[in-house]
């Protein structure tokens, strides 16, 4: 019997500091046992438990896309014991990854649809996974228009800056990058909060689904904008965070009503969330 609590050993291949406050680093991990990579088959929207012996585990969204082979990526915010320790680790160090866990964005349903992605701050990780996945030559034709609204407090707090710039150059994805405020006279993108920019750019709700991830305050003010644009609750998809331990629906702490965020989520439609207790 496979032990679902046993992490796959991985080696830290590279560490990139993403933001000017140095609070977010992207870890590229390579499986120590190459056969584990196939066992870790995942879909954009899923997460994994990052495990550091002696420190514990932390549930983090998978930032790489299954179309990227040979490694997996996680962008980690420095918050508690495990993530702070991770930030002090070096390339070459050994740690563990357990997963993939949870459900994913409903790719079969999304096929043939226009996709509107709305992200804020460091919640852009599984959205990066999704964009890379959809833009892959094998997949791009399976989806209609792709529109992205991505905001951070300042330019230096945006994740994946090189990729954002590359996506800006493409004609098969509409990028609306924004910051809350900016003193850089050469800033060539938007200035304004995500809800405001979403309203301005007004992506069509026609044949479209919206995937929204970000801080609660951003989600709170963006949902009415999406509703006004004509997105029904079953076409607004979000992903939740929760304190987790087992990640496989057993240890009991991440429930919202009868649903475990780790196993039945983390991806929920707004329609589903409206039927659950507001305990998240």
């Amino acid at each position: 019997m496979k032990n679902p609590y046993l992490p796959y050993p991985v080696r830290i291949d590279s560490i990139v500091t993403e933001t000017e406050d140095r609070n977010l680093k992207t870890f590229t991990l390579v499986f120590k046992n190459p056969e584990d990579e196939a066992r870790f088959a995942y879909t954009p929207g899923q997460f994994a438990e990052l495990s550091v012996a002696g420190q514990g585990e932390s549930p983090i969204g998978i930032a790489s896309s299954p179309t990227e082979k040979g490694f997996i990526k996680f962008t980690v915010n420095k918050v508690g014991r495990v993530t702070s320790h991770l930030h002090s680790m070096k390339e070459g160090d050994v740690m563990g990854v357990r997963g993939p866990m949870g459900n994913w964005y409903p790719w079969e349903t999304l096929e043939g649809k226009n996709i509107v992605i709305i992200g804020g701050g460091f919640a852009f990780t599984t959205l990066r996974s999704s964009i890379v996945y959809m833009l892959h030559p094998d997949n791009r034709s399976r989806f209609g228009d792709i529109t992205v609204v991505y905001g951070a407090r300042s330019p230096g707090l945006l994740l994946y800056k090189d990729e954002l710039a590359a996506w800006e150059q493409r004609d098969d994805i509409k990028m609306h990058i924004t910051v809350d405020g900016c003193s850089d006279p050469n800033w060539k993108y938007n200035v304004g909060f995500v809800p405001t920019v979403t309203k301005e750019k007004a992506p069509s709700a026609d044949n479209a689904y919206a995937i929204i991830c970000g801080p609660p305050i951003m989600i709170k003010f963006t949902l009415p904008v999406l509703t006004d644009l004509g997105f029904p609750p079953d076409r607004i998809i979000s992903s939740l965070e929760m304190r987790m331990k087992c990640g496989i629906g057993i240890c009991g702490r991440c429930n919202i009503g009868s649903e475990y965020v780790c196993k039945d989520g983390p991806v929920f439609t707004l329609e589903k969330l409206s039927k659950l207790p507001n305990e998240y």
Partner: protein
Amino acid sequence: MTEMYIPKEKLAGVVEDLIGRQRVYGPVFDGAYHNFEEIKSAGALDLAYSNTRLSAKGLFHPHSERMFEYSLASGDPEAGVLKETEKDYSPRVVLGMRPCDARALKIMDRNFNSPQYGDPWWVKRIEATTIVGLACNAPCGTCFCTTAGSGPFDDSGLDAMLVDLGEGYLARAVTDKGSALLSQISKGSAAPADAAQKADALRRSAEAAIGLQFDVGSITGKDSMELFNSPIWEEIQFACINCGTCTFLCPTCWCFDIQDETHGEHGDRIRIWDSCMFPLFTLHGSGHNPRQNKAQRVRQRFMHKLRYYPEKYGDGIACTGCGRCVRACPVNIDIRNVARLMSSSACVRPA
């Protein structure tokens, strides 16, 4: 072998024979309470008991256990890689478990052995164990097993069941495992002609002594959000001190924490019982806590037992009516009263 009679004077010999073949666990009196322990000699087993202080869940989901071990030694090529901790999964028998506690294992099994994930430690311990229950002839005043879908003679969680007929035990196999165990017992004899009739009379009088405490269907049939938003929780939570005694003693409270403990260059990843009564249970790294108030945590416990679990699995409530939480609560919160409030809360509209 599906049925036999064991005269009480022969029980010690039967237990000694079992000890020679596998590990044997049963209720042991520690001077104040009964609890499940490994029986090394037949004299330690005490079947003249009402129920154990702690439920039987710890036999399968221990209060604390090592999951993995690791080395942090510099130069160790395996440093930082978790290894499974060796455990004893040799066959064992648990004697004298009450039907409510055995049914609780069936409820826990839904959680620990789902179609998607099997908890290896749980599954292997269940597989290694033959459970010989002891029917309840004299339920306590706090028992409500018949209300909760179990009963004093419920054999649904058992491999075999003993019924105390006074001078001896009627032993009945329930599963193949139980039947295999009974066939190991050479000191039993054929059941007397009136044994089944006597056992049935004991069952009827035990069931009659309990009585119906609340109506499960009127809770599980109710809208979940209506119950969640009901004003009853304010009153229910008022006295609670979030001590966690109820979750500690409950035979179906399975929640656990996972922690790493390092000593020098070596350490263990361990799991320990946790409790939804504690604020740390749900505290995010950011400081946000979805159940930061006592009322939210109290509501979570009862809603999980009586509404969320049935909603998720469609298999009755996550309570077997053992009554431990009722007896041990320091502020006299009684799940039977809570259940009655929940079942009648449709009449109460939020102000």
